[in-house]
Structure formats: C-alpha cells, structure tokens
C-alpha cells in the first residue's frame, strides 16, 4: 500500500516535469510570461531557414509575415471582446500588407519592453506596434517611412487646470513605460520640470490611474488618447500636443532593407487602393491621421 503511494507520487512528478519541459511556459509571473510562450514558439520555428521570395526578401518563416506587436494599445492593437482575437489599426494594416505581398500573417504578442530586442533576434520580421519614429531608434533599427501622423499629448480630466506640459509642475503624470511619452516627460524632468512621473506596464493602467484620481494627467500618443476620449469623451480632454511630431512607422532589424522596401511598396499599394483610408476611418473616425504624415 505504501509502495503504491510512493510509485504514484513518483509517476505524477515525472508527468508534471515532462509537461513542464514540453510547454515553453516560463516561471515569470509578469504579463510577459504568456507572451514569452508565444514568442518562443515563433522562435523555435524561426530555427528553420527562411525563404527567399522571388521579390528578393526573406521572412523568418516561409510564406508567412511574422509581426511583433504589443496587444493592449487601443485603437492600434488590442483584443476583441473575446479576449483572444487581435484587432486594431495596426492589426488590420498588417493583414492588408500581408495580403498584398501574398503572405500569411502571424501575430506575435510581446511585452513592450522587450519588443525591439525581439526583432533583432529574429523572433519576428517586423514590428507593427505604434512604433514612433525616433532618432535613437533610427540608429539602432531600420525604420520605414511613416504611415500615421502622431505626437504625444496630455490628457486631463475636464475640470483640470492643466493646459500645457509646464503645468505638470508639482503634479503627477502617468505614462506607459518605455514609450515616447515616457521619454518626453523624462526629458522635461531632466530640464527642470518638477513632476511625479508614474510608469505603468500597459497604457490602460495609466488611464485607470487618471480615472481613480491617483494622477493628475496622462501623457500618451495622440492616437491612443483619441480612443480613450472616445469612450469617456465627456470626462476628459486633450490639452497639449508636443511640437515634436512622432509619426508611426514599421520597425525592422537593421540591414533588412529588402523586406522594408517590399513592405513600403505594399504600404503604397494599400494606400492607393483606398484600403488604408478605410481602416483609418474605422478606427479614428476619419482618415486625417494617414495624411500629413512627415
């Protein structure tokens, strides 16, 4: 009887260890854990050599355009009400581009603070995740020409007295970690602005904080602000827009010019065919953001 129990426990342990090794689950408890599983699955498939298309570029997986993105940034990339289907401007654009290039589309959901490392290490071909054009980014990675006009803005409650970034003096502002809004506020802080910067993993947390009254303002991309304001427009307002425009572009590994050129051509096709305007109107209410792109 005792021997039976011991054998049973040993068998159970062996089975759970095998199951643990089999899946790519990591022991981290952050949100990155699910994304790490998705990313490493894509990564193990990346071990197969990519194909060279007749068009002259290679993708990690033959016949598939693998796109890295951080799902959780409405209206650009977020989950549908079922909690599993990615939707959003970037997602539909990715599908349109893949269709135009004759490739299948695979989306890899990645935590934002590892997303650039992922394109360098070949976890995905391109990042389509509201990547703002920044000088530093352009040096380390290959950025395409922009497809959406964008700039950081400040969102405050309707009754707030904040009207300018300098009004954040002595107040608190929430941002999403490692975004351009985060860097922008840090730059102002380095130049003497005395504000309490609160950084969060997901942009929605920053807006939760604003709603809960724990911060006085949120600094984020204009495109995101318009989504949240759309939901609760009567309670909040956008009060300031940075002069430093940060148009959104696609991000590739440095040197991957072939794929970048191919995707820019596809982008032109999608724009000319009117599909880009269609997607823009669906998510922004008008196609203004896709024009006036610098």
């Amino acid at each position, binding site marked *: 009887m005792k021997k039976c129990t011991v054998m049973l426990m040993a068998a159970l342990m062996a089975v759970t260890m095998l199951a643990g090794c089999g899946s790519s689950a990591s022991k981290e408890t*952050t949100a990155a854990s699910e994304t790490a599983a998705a990313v490493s699955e894509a990564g193990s498939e990346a071990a197969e050599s990519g194909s060279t298309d007749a068009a002259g570029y290679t993708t990690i997986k033959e016949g598939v355009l693998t796109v890295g993105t951080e799902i959780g940034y409405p209206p650009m990339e977020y989950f549908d009400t079922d909690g599993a289907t990615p939707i959003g401007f970037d997602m539909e654009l990715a599908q349109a581009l893949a269709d135009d290039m004759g490739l299948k589309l695979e989306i890899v959901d990645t935590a934002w*603070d590892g997303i650039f490392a992922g394109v360098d290490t070949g976890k995905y071909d391109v990042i389509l995740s509201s990547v703002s054009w920044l000088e530093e980014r352009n040096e*380390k990675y290959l950025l395409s020409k922009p497809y959406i006009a964008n700039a950081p803005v400040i969102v405050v409650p309707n009754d707030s007295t904040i009207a300018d970034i300098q009004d954040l003096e002595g107040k608190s502002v929430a941002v999403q970690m490692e975004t351009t809004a985060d860097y922008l506020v840090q730059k102002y802080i380095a130049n003497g602005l005395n504000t309490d910067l609160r950084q969060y*993993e997901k942009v929605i*947390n920053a807006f939760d904080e604003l709603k809960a009254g724990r911060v006085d303002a949120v600094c984020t991309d204009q495109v995101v602000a318009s989504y949240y304001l759309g939901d609760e427009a009567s309670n909040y307002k956008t009060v300031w827009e940075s002069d430093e425009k940060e148009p959104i572009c696609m991000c590739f590994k440095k040197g991957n010019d072939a794929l970048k050129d191919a995707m820019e051509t596809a982008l032109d096709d999608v724009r000319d065919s009117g599909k880009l305007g269609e997607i823009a109107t669906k998510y922004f209410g008008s196609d203004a953001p896709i024009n006036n792109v610098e």
Partner: protein
Amino acid sequence: MMDKIITWMPQLLLGARTTIIITIIAVAVGLVLSFFLALGKMSKNPLLNKPCSAYIFFFRGTPLLIQIYFIYFGLPQFNPALTIKSAFVAALIAYTLNSAAYLAENIRAGIQSIDKGQYEAAKALGMTYRQTMQLIILPQTVRRLIPPVGNEFIMVLKDVSLVAIIGLSDLTKVTRAISSSQATALVYIPAMVIYLIITAFFSFIFNRMEKKYSVYE
C-alpha cells in the same frame, strides 16, 4: 563596462531599497497577523476557525499578481471609496495579507509539532489555555518557525518584483527599465548580484537567530 555599471548603481540601489522595505514590512506585519490566523484556525469555535480558514484558503489559492492588481486597480472600479491613493501602501497591504496566509500554515504546523506532553504538564500545573500558549508553547515554536519564516522572507523578496504592474519602482523594474532604454542586458548582472547579496545577508541573520534559539534543543 564597470563604469556603465557604476552609473546604474544609484537607481538600482534605490530600487533595492523599495524592494527591501516592502519585504520587511510585509513579512513582519504578516507574521503578527499570521499568529492570530493560525490560532484562529486551530480554535474549536466555528466563528473563529471558519473565517480564518477561508482567509488562508483565499490568499493561498489566488495568484499574488492578481491580488495586487485587484487591490490596486480592481477595488476602485467596484467602489471609488475603495481607492488606495498610494501604490506603495497598496503593495504593502497585498504582500502583508498574502504572507500572513502562508505563514499562518507554517505557524500552525509549528504549534502542532510541540509535544502533547507540554500541554499535559501545563494543565497539571493548573495553567489556562492562554497561559499555556503564551508561556510554554509559543516560545518553543519560535525556534521551529525560523526556517519557514526565513524561507518566506526570501520568497517575498523576489515576489516583490511584481509591483511593477502598479507602477512602483522596485529593483527588477529599474533593471528592466535600464535594460530596454539602453538596449543592454548587461544590467541584469549587477541586479542579480544585488539580490544575492540581500539574500545572503538575511540568510545569515536567520541562521544566527536559529543558532541562538537552539540553545535548549
């Protein structure tokens, strides 16, 4: 390379300070709370043992990440009056409540491991339950509790890395922030070294405590 690490040290140490403070408060206050929980759970009175069991079941049965998230972001959505203004306070609450649940079981085990003879002798001397616990049983359990409590402390030290989701800058968050803003994985090395030093320091302290309390064994 070393000069880069030196520039990162101030931020890393600030993060380490937050980590250590949360850990110490959570385990210390959690320990006090857990004594009452353990005694409550062991009580014959259902008005005591049912809520204590339920509490322990809930806090051990749900992930710490969800607990933190719920306390900070979830509660305000149910009732704005439940908004905890400070993320630091919310973290302290979450970690304390969580640790208390795990420690309560350790304490219960410690108490139950004391020889029944001790209770009998105390009864023979005419001591009340309360006196027995206070003067005879609990002092003996202290020595037995040091390894589990030390263990919990070291676990909480690493679990504190979850506070990043409510915007607190602990050592892990600072490390990740430096890593992604400067595109380097090098910073993980000093971060791990700092964790090891903290762990070694507290392990040493717990060891000393254990030796001191083992005098009578």
